[in-house]
C-alpha cells in the first residue's frame, strides 16, 4: 500500500470502535493511575492488510537464513563458549516475549483510547511471533550444535533454576500488579524502549563475532517490530502525563522499573557479551561502551531527559548509579564470577578465561586483573576434576554471597548490601533501591497515598532456601541437570566433552551440605546479625572475604 492509502486505511479503521450502549467490557485489572484529562495520542499506524504480508516476508528471510546456515555447516565455526550461554538466554527469553503478549489486555480497560487498543492487539501477535520464533531457534541449536544438553531440557531448567528465576522478573513484571505500572512503564517504557537494544542488537552482534549468524537474523527481525511497541508505550505515557496526580506514581514506577531492569538485564546480557565471547579484538566495544551508547545516550539522554519538560522527575541518580555499578563497581564482572562459582547449579558449561581474555579485560577495564585475575586462574586450575571439589567448596578467597530479595541477583557489590526486616523476615538487598522496591514501592500505600492496585512481591524468592543443608548431588538430581548416563552433570566448568574430564554426581557427593544464607541469617541473634552485616559490607571486590584486622 502507498503511504497515502495507509493513512486513509488507518483513518477508516478508526470507525470500528464503538461506545458500549448496553454492557461494558469486563474489567479484570486495576490501576491507581487516572486518565480523566488525557488527550488521546496516536500510536504508529499499522493496518493488518499490510502487516501480515510484511511479517511473512520477514519470516521468509529468517527461515531462508536458517536453511543456509545448516547447508553451510555454520556449526563448524560457532564458538562453544558462546553457544553455552545461549542455553541460559534462550531458556529465559521466550517467556518475556509471550508475557508481553499476555500483558496487552491489561491496558484495554485502563487506558481509554480505542485507537491504542488496535496497536496493542498487533503487539500481542508480534510477541507471539517473537516467542515462538525464538523457541524455534533454540530447537535448531539443539538439533545442530554439538552438545544438546541444556537445550533439550531448557524449559524445565528455566523453571527451577535460580538464574531462570532472576530472568522471570523480566516477564512477570509485565503481567501483574497495577496495569499501568506493569504493562506500560515496566514493559514498554523501560524494558522495550531502553533494554531491547542491548538484548536484540548488541548481543546478536556478539553472536556473529562468535560464528553464529542465526541469532542476529532472528533477533534483528524481532527488533524491527519493537519501534511500534515503543510507540504504543510513548502514546500511553503522554496520556498518563496529562494528569498531574499521576506524576507521583510515574516517578515511583520509573525508579522501580529502571532499577530492576538494570539489575536483571545488565547482569545477564553483560555476562553473555563479556564472558561468552571469544572475540578479543581491542576495538570491539565492551558491554560498558555499548551501554553508554545504547542506554545512556540513546535512552536516557534522548528519551527520558526530554520528559522533564512535562514536569516529570527523572531518576537521574539511578541512571548514574547503574553506570557507576557497571563502570566502577564491576557489576558485570561480579555477576559472571558468581555464575562461574555456582556452575554446579547451572545447565550450561562455562569456559575458563585465558591469558588473551585477561589482556582484553585489563585493556577495557583497567584494574580488572588485580581484582579478578587470581580467581579466574583458580577457576581454570579447578576446572577438570582431579581429587578436588568444585570451586564453590574450595578456598579461593571467595565468600558465597547472600541474595537480593527483590532482584534476586546476589548482593555482589558487597559494600552496598542493605539489611532490613520486612514482613517479619530479615532480608538482604543488593542496593538501597531494591530495599525500597520491596519495603516501600510494592505496597498498598505510597507516600501516604492509597495504592490499592499496586502489585506484590511473592514466591520463594531465595532459591537456596529450597535446598537448605542438602548435598549438591541431590540438588542437581532434584533439578534434573544430569545427562543420560545417570551421573555426568549437564553443567561443566570447562568445554572439554571428554567424558573422563567431566564432573559427575559422585564428585558432588563429597561436598559438604549447602546451607541457605537467608535461613541462616534468620536464625541469628541480633548481635550475630549486626556482626554479619558489618563483615559483609567490608567484603569484596571479587567476593574476597573481609580483611582480618
Amino acid at each position: 500500500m502507498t503511504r497515502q492509502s495507509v493513512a486513509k486505511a488507518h483513518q477508516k479503521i478508526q470507525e470500528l470502535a464503538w461506545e458500549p450502549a448496553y454492557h461494558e467490557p469486563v474489567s479484570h485489572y486495576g490501576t491507581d493511575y487516572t486518565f480523566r484529562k488525557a488527550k488521546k495520542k496516536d500510536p504508529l499506524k499499522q493496518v493488518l492488510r499490510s502487516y501480515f504480508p510484511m511479517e511473512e516476508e520477514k519470516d521468509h528471510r529468517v527461515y531462508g537464513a536458517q536453511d543456509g546456515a545448516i547447508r553451510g555447516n555454520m556449526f563448524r565455526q560457532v564458538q562453544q563458549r558462546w553457544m553455552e550461554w545461549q542455553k541460559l538466554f534462550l531458556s529465559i527469553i521466550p517467556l518475556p516475549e509471550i508475557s508481553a503478549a499476555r500483558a496487552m489486555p491489561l491496558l484495554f480497560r485502563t487506558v481509554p483510547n480505542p485507537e491504542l487498543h488496535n496497536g496493542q492487539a498487533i503487539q500481542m501477535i508480534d510477541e507471539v511471533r517473537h516467542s515462538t520464533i525464538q523457541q524455534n531457534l533454540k530447537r535448531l541449536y539443539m538439533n545442530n550444535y554439538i552438545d544438546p544438553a541444556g537445550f533439550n531440557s531448557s524449559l524445565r531448567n528455566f523453571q527451577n533454576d535460580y538464574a531462570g528465576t532472576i530472568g522471570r522478573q523480566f516477564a512477570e513484571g509485565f503481567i501483574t500488579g497495577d496495569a499501568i505500572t506493569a504493562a506500560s512503564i515496566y514493559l514498554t517504557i523501560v524494558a522495550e524502549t531502553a533494554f531491547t537494544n542491548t538484548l536484540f542488537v548488541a548481543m546478536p552482534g556478539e553472536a556473529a563475532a562468535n560464528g553464529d549468524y542465526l541469532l542476529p537474523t532472528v533477533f534483528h527481525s524481532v527488533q524491527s517490530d519493537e519501534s511500534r511497541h515503543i510507540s504504543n508505550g510513548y502514546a500511553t505515557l503522554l496520556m498518563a502525563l496529562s494528569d498531574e496526580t499521576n506524576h507521583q506514581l510515574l516517578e515511583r514506577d520509573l525508579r522501580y522499573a529502571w532499577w530492576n531492569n538494570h539489575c536483571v538485564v545488565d547482569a545477564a546480557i553483560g555476562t553473555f557479551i563479556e564472558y561468552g565471547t571469544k572475540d578479543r579484538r581491542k576495538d570491539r566495544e565492551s558491554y560498558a561502551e555499548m551501554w553508554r551508547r545504547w542506554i545512556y545516550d540513546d535512552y536516557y539522554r534522548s528519551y527520558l531527559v526530554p520528559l522533564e519538560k512535562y514536569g516529570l522527575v527523572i531518576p537521574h541518580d539511578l541512571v548514574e548509579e547503574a553506570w557507576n555499578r557497571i563502570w566502577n563497581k564491576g557489576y558485570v564482572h561480579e555477576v559472571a564470577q558468581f555464575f562461574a562459582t555456582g556452575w554446579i547449579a547451572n545447565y550450561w558449561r562455562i569456559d575458563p578465561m585465558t591469558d588473551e581474555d585477561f589482556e582484553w579485560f585489563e585493556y577495557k577495564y583497567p584494574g580488572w586483573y588485580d581484582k579478578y585475575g587470581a580467581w579466574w586462574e583458580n577457576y581454570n586450575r579447578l576446572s577438570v576434576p582431579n581429587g578436588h571439589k568444585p570451586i564453590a567448596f574450595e578456598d579461593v578467597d571467595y565468600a558465597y554471597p547472600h541474595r537480593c530479595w527483590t532482584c534476586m541477583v546476589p548482593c555482589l557489590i558487597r559494600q552496598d548490601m542493605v539489611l532490613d526486616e520486612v514482613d517479619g523476615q530479615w532480608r538482604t538487598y543488593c542496593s538501597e533501591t531494591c530495599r525500597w522496591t520491596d519495603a516501600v514501592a510494592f505496597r498498598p500505600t505510597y507516600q501516604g497515598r492509597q495504592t490499592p492496585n499496586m502489585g506484590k512481591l511473592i514466591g520463594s524468592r531465595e532459591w537456596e532456601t529450597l535446598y537448605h543443608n542438602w548435598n549438591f548431588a541431590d540438588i542437581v538430581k532434584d533439578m534434573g541437570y544430569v545427562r543420560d548416563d545417570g551421573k555426568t552433570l549437564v553443567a561443566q566448568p570447562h568445554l572439554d566433552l571428554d567424558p573422563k574430564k567431566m564432573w559427575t554426581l559422585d564428585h558432588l557427593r563429597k561436598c559438604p551440605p549447602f546451607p541457605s544464607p537467608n535461613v541462616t541469617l534468620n536464625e541469628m541473634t541480633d548481635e550475630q546479625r549486626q556482626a554479619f552485616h558489618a563483615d559483609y559490607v567490608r567484603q569484596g571486590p571479587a567476593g574476597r572475604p573481609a580483611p582480618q584486622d
Partner: protein
Amino acid sequence: MTATQERPGSQEQPQRSVPKPVFTDAEAGAREFPDSTLRRFNYYVPRKRKQSHYEDVTVEVQPDPRHYLSQGWLYGFADGTGGYPLDWTVLKAWGSDRPVPERFPGSGGQGYEWPAHGWHEFRDPNEEWEQSIYRNNSNVVRQLSQNIDAARQSKAFEQWNPNWVQFVAQHVGAWMHVDHGLGLYLFANANRRAPTNMHNTAISVNSMHRIRSAQDLALYNLTLSEEIPGFDGTAHNETWSADPAWQGVRETAEQLTAIWDWAEAVFAANVVFEPLVGELFRSNLVQQAAPGNGDFVTPTLIGAEEYDYAERDLRYTKALFEPLVRDKEFATHNTEIMDSWLATWVPRCLAAARTLQPLWSQPDAKPPRFEDGLDRAKSRFRGILADLGLRTPKELNQ
C-alpha cells in the same frame, strides 16, 4: 573520495577489524559423550508418538508451579495471586484441585509429575505458531485484495442493484463492529487468562482472525465508497448504533465482552453465538442473497471469515472443551456448567438472531426465508454440541 585516501589493496590500507572465522567443529555428531544424541525437548509428553514442531515451540513456555516452577510466581496482583490462576474459570481439568506444592527450608523443588493437571493436555489442532499465523493471514489478505482489484477493474460493482448497494453499506458494514468488539475485548482479552501457553496462543490467533475480518470489512467499505457513486461509507455506524434490527446483536455482543470467566467467554462466543448469529448472518443471509443481487465480491470476504471460524477457530474450540466434558475427574462438574452456559446464552443469541429478521426482506432478490436459515443454523449448532458431547438445551426450541 579524497586524494589522500589510499587505493584499495595498497599497503598503507588500515586493516579492517573484523572477527575471524575459526574452525571449531562444534556441530552435532562431532563427538560422542553423555547426552550427545538427545536431540529432543525432554520436559513434556507429546500428544502423538512424536513431538510436533508446534508443540516444541509452545509447550511449557508458560510455566506452572504445580510441576517445574519450584520457586513459584514472583510477582502478584495486590491480592497476592500471580501467574495464571486455574480459578479464572469455573471449569476444571483433572488435577485442578491439587494444591500448589509447598516450599520451605529444605523442601526441594519437586512438583507433581508432568503434566500435573489436565489443562496441559490441550493442543491446538491448527498447530498455530509464528509461521502458520503469518502464512495463513497473508494468504487471506492477498486473496481478498486481488479479488477486490479484479472486481474494480471489471467494473463488477456496476452490476449491483441499488437496494443491494444500500444493504452492503448498512448491514454487511454493521458486522465489522461485531468482529472488532469480540476480537479485541473478548478474544485478545482472554489471551491473558487461560492456564497454558497453548490455550492463550490459540486464543490470540482467534483474536487476530476477528480483528483482521473487521479491518477487511472496513477497508472493503472504503473501496466501495470510492468505486460506487452514492455508496454511503458511514451508514454502518448509524445502522450499528440505531437500527432496531441490529440492537439485539449489539446488546449480545456487548454482553459477551462483559463475561468474567475466560472459558465461558470463548464458549459463548464460539459454541453459541457464532453458529446461531454469526453463521446465520454470514452463510444464511449474505452468502445466499449476494449472487442474486449481482454481487460476487462480498461473498469472498464473508467466505474468508466463515473459513476462519469453521475450519480453525471452531476446531480449537472443540479440542478445548470436548476433553473437559469427558474429563476423568470433573466430567459431571464441567457438563453441568456448560449446560448452564447454554441455558444462559442460547436464549440471548436466539433473541439476537430473531431481531435480525427484517434484513431478510430488504434485498430485491430475496434470500431463502429467515425461518429456513435459522433452522439450518440450529441444526449446525446441534451438531457442534453433539461433537462436544453436550445435550441440546430445551431453550433452543423457543
